[in-house]
């Protein structure tokens, strides 16, 4: 019996020694790889914790202490890494649950046993990236938005979206701009039901949306889910220009994907992210959902006066019997959800009439109304810059580069002009006058067709400064309306004012800074899908101008030919605009 006891004791002692050696071995291995690897300065670690170089070290963009396990974690990637590794070695349940992605990264890098404590949503089968285009009624949305759809096997309606949103506390106008530019808003990565958000885009703002499948590996797909859980622990300051939704979605993707999205400075836009992903072949299966108000306009413009009145009746008064004309019924149905969501007093009436309209279409076996997604053959780059060379007919040559340029001219067959142009740098030179250097801070054009249903108004805003022997400035704002004639011609009229000390139409200095009234009346004519003819009369700087412009866009270049008549002179100008 004592012999047996001794034997058991020896075996237990040997086991303890073996376990001890094992622990020492693992620790030495981990410590060894720690010192050898400098993992804390690797892009993997820095990206996962949103560290940015500061010159003397690093600082994480995550502002909440909950995002770190050490008190100095925001400024100390190494300390945070060492403390995290310690918890990973101990298989700490709290760490594994709160920071499942860091746990995965560290176990993978150090070859430590991986026993995750969080469950992934196995229903998520792919990630879709969505790009709602610009929305001119909100400065923050003029460059578009970007979000991810964590799509389940049942499709988008069963899915959630993940995006970065700023809490603006309902601010508008100048306070909103000031706080947005100076980083006074907090932003979060927010997950919500796809069907809720998409209703807002589809029927409240009614924006076109581009969708792409994001080519993630199974591992990256898992990383995204794990990392999203960690992001619930912090907020990040929102900056309108450079740390906005595009920036944070790019940072999120960089944290979970092998392919890296380039971070731009001093500003970041959704198109940067999309174009980078397209260039690296990370997107597939492009499709576009066209706003239903656009489809409504296209149908409504073809109706005669009586038919338009029928549509208006359907939108404003309860009817006993629906009209039978499918074009009238479809025009009404295409605008109905927009009206319900934007004009709530009409909602009950519109809903009653929708049912009658659908009944009438059902009797004619013609009930397909809602917009469907249009697939593209392959993802194409979203043009967001323009380079323009022009000659004004008076020995004056101009070269201008706009790093931010979004235009309906991307879709040349559209009549509405919705352009966003910012920070354009230009130089104009010639033998007759000194060289002029220009900076167009912003130029916004929102010439949108008006009709009795949608009641849109048009406006333009421009603010530019220049140097030509002295400092010059020109700020202009106009507002008015535009009407579409049979989807071929847009007629518009705008009135407003200019505050300037130079005349940018004639390239002349004014005697002093002046506030001047302005007027513009014009027509935009779609001659073919690649050819436009624009005619306009402008009253600016107390002068009359008549401008005829022919635009031809076979591919990415827009060729322009213009005739500008002023008093007793007429100038022939030419221009080339390259969109890229």
């Amino acid at each position: 019996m004592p012999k047996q006891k001794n034997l058991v004791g020896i075996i237990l002692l040997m086991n303890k020694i073996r376990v001890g050696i094992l622990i020492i071995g693992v620790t030495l291995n981990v410590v060894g790889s720690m010192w050898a690897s400098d993992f804390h300065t690797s892009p993997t670690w820095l990206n996962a914790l949103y560290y940015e170089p500061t010159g003397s070290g690093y600082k994480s963009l995550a502002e909440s202490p909950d995002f770190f396990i050490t008190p100095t974690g925001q400024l100390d990637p190494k300390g945070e890494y060492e403390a995290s590794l310690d918890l990973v070695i101990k298989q700490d349940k709290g760490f594994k649950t709160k920071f499942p992605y860091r746990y995965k990264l560290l176990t993978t890098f150090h070859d430590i046993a991986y026993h995750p404590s969080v469950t992934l949503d196995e229903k998520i089968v792919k990630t879709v990236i969505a790009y709602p285009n610009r929305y001119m009624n909100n400065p923050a949305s003029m460059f578009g938005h970007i979000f991810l759809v964590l799509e389940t096997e049942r499709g988008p309606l069963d899915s959630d979206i993940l995006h970065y949103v700023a809490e603006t506390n309902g601010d508008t106008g100048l306070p909103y701009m000031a706080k947005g530019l100076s980083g006074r808003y907090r932003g979060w990565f927010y997950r919500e039901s796809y069907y809720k958000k998409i209703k807002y885009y589809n029927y409240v703002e009614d924006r076109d949306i581009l969708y792409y499948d994001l080519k993630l590996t199974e591992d990256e797909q898992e990383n995204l889910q794990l990392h999203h859980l960690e992001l619930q622990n912090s907020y990040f300051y929102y900056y309108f220009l450079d740390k906005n939704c595009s920036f944070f979605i790019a940072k999120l993707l960089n944290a979970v994907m092998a392919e890296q999205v380039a971070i731009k400075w001093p500003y970041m836009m959704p198109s940067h992210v999309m174009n980078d992903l397209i260039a690296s072949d990370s997107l597939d299966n492009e499709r576009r959902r066209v706003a239903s108000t656009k489809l409504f306009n296209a149908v409504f413009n073809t109706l005669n006066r009586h038919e338009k009145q029928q549509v208006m009746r359907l939108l404003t008064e309860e009817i006993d019997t629906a009209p039978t004309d499918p074009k009238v019924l479809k025009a009404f149905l295409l605008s109905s959800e927009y009206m319900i969501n934007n004009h709530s007093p009409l909602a009950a009436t519109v809903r009653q009439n929708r049912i009658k309209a659908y009944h009438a279409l059902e009797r004619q076996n013609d009930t397909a109304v809602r917009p469907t997604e249009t697939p593209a053959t392959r993802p194409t780059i979203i043009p967001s810059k323009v380079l323009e060379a022009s000659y004004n007919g008076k020995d004056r040559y101009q070269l201008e580069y706009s790093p931010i340029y979004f235009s309906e001219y991307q879709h040349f067959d559209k009549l509405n002009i919705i352009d966003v142009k910012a920070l354009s740098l230009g130089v104009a030179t010639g033998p007759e006058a000194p060289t002029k250097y220009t900076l167009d801070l912003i130029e916004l054009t929102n010439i949108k067709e008006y009709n009795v249903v949608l009641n849109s108004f048009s406006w333009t805003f421009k603010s530019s400064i220049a140097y030509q022997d002295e400092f010059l400035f020109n700020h202009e704002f106009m507002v008015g309306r535009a009407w579409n004639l049979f989807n071929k011609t847009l007629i518009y009229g705008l009135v407003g004012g200019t505050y300037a000390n130079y005349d940018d139409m004639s390239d002349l200095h004014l005697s002093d800074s002046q506030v001047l009234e302005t007027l513009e009346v014009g027509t935009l004519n779609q001659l073919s899908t690649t050819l436009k003819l624009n005619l306009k009369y402008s009253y600016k700087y107390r002068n009359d101008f008549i401008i005829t412009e022919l635009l031809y866009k076979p591919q990415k270049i827009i060729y322009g030919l213009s005739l500008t008549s002023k008093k007793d002179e007429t100038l022939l100008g030419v221009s080339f605009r390259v969109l890229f």
Partner: protein
Amino acid sequence: MKHFIVLLLFCSTAFMAQTKLESTLSTELISFTLFNYDNLIADSYEDQSPYMTQLAYLLGRATQVPESQYLAILNRASFKTESSPINYMMALNAKTKELSGYYFVDE
């Protein structure tokens, strides 16, 4: 014994008839129905019916009744012609209770 089984069945049916779905499920059903009412109506007339399919799936998952039965209900004339989102949801609630014994909103 026979009477006891009948009583038990009666009680269980009566109990089922008054079972409100747990909060997460009922909130999801209320939210989905009210948010998407206009598209649910459009679905019942147009060829594509993604909203109705998803609602039937949510109801089926919550009550263990086949989705096809809910789809059939949503395609009925009484639903296709209901012009109030609230009434649509309440009618669906009543039909769900009738079909499965579960409901998602208090009447």
